[in-house]
């Protein structure tokens, strides 16, 4: 209860600021918070990256294990993306099985990677119908201060870019790196009081009626989109969000990947 009232007050505050062309932390509407990407932070993982966007802190670890392919794609490796919104990361998160928010987060990140065809799944096949590499992308949120999607997606692609295939562990030989074919980057914008803001802070995320995550590739094509939130958007607003998404993705890709 108490929390809800606080959230209402903050929402009003954020909206008032936006009406006056301002943001809580003084950023411009099209400005990201500081981003940092730390690679290979987890020894036990075949790939990992810790991404901070402002105070938002997301750790992505990728495990690669041998498994059997799906019956309908016997010659392709398997990617499984999972997100844990562990209660350590926010007073709003609760223990328990994935809920709709963590499922959406995982599926949006997954969609971007699949859509971009960044990983050549054929290269993950060892023996058709029998043995393929299973790539588990685990998104572990540590501190939720808004815009988890962009941090998680950036962590995922950064982890994949440094992936070591654990051939030795399974007595196999072969290339230990996985040539990546693209670098999808997610950019989330929100609509508040008719304005489009990139990289929403926690309060901005709450205040926004709609939020759109646009995932785009090195060549500027789109490889995934997801609107969430309970508001509606005009075509022109979506077009603007896509525009910003592609532009900002390029900047992030240039600096951090």
């Amino acid at each position: 209860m108490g929390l809800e009232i606080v959230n209402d007050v903050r929402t009003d505050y954020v909206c008032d600021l936006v009406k006056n062309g301002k943001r809580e932390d003084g950023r411009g509407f099209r400005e990201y918070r500081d981003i940092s990407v730390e690679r290979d932070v987890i020894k036990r993982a075949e790939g990992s990256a810790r991404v901070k966007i402002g105070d938002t802190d997301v750790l992505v670890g990728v495990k690669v294990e041998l498994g059997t392919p799906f019956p309908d794609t016997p010659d392709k490796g398997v990617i499984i993306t999972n997100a844990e919104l562990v209660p350590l990361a926010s007073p709003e998160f609760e223990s328990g099985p994935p809920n709709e928010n963590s499922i959406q987060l995982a599926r949006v990140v997954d969609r971007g990677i699949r859509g971009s065809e960044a990983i050549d799944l054929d290269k993950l096949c060892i023996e058709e119908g029998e043995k393929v590499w299973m790539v588990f992308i685990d998104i572990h949120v540590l501190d939720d201060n808004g815009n988890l999607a962009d941090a998680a997606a950036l962590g995922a692609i950064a982890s994949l870019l440094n992936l070591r295939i654990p051939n030795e562990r399974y007595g196999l030989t072969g290339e230990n790196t996985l040539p990546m074919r693209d670098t999808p980057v997610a950019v989330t914008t929100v609509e508040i009081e008719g304005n489009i803001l990139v990289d929403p802070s926690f309060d901005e995320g709450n205040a926004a009626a709609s939020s759109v995550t646009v995932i785009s590739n090195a060549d500027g094509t789109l490889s995934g989109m997801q609107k969430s939130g309970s508001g509606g958007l005009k075509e022109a607003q979506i077009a603007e969000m896509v525009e910003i998404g592609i532009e900002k993705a390029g900047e992030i890709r240039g600096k951090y990947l």
Partner: protein
Amino acid sequence: MKEEIELIKDGKRLDGRGFDELRPIKIEVGVLKRADGSCYLELGDNKVIAAVYGPREMHPRHAQDAKMAVVKFRYNMAPFSTDDRKRPGPDRRSVEISKVCREAFNPVIMRELYPKTGIEVYVELLQSDAGTRTAGINAASIALADAGIPMKDLVSSVAVGKIDGEMVLDLNAVEDNNGEADMPIAMIARTNTITALQMDGRLTKEEFERGLKLAVGACHQIYELQRTALVTRYNQNYESKSKREEE
């Protein structure tokens, strides 16, 4: 995302449709007796039934909202609705779709009229053929109206996608399985307000914009079909009521 199957021949799609052509849509309003509102809808080979209960007391109490009704949306596939039997119960895909669909309706349902209550929307996919969530939203929209839930407007939904390099409307299963991209949207047709948007696959910005236009246009068509179905239904009710009163 294999492209071995030729999906477009002589400018027509495998099922004979043009690029901007919807599959046939069939709508029946008020098909269930227990539900407060209901709708059976076919979109091509999709068969979907939607039911609405509420506004009614919300359980558990801590999930109530003191200021408005809470909308629950459950998208569910019947085990026999797909080629491979679907294990009963929610999976990750249906949880995500349920969320997206619920949010598609939040802008239109006048939730503030019924604080502390729940409005429950149930969509059962009986037979699936791609575009199931759009069929579900279209059916749910009518079921909500049939239940008398006050809404600012109907929500209409359709998907566009890319097959054989072309942007086309309303993919069926073969097209979806062999296509390059799929983008379902939902909108309030009357105000051109988009309330749901997802995209899978790979599209250039231009393709995306073209697709969005295609979808927006189709939503207006669907809106008319929805309206007609509801009007027909109300006239029936009115007629049968008048008849009863005459007798």
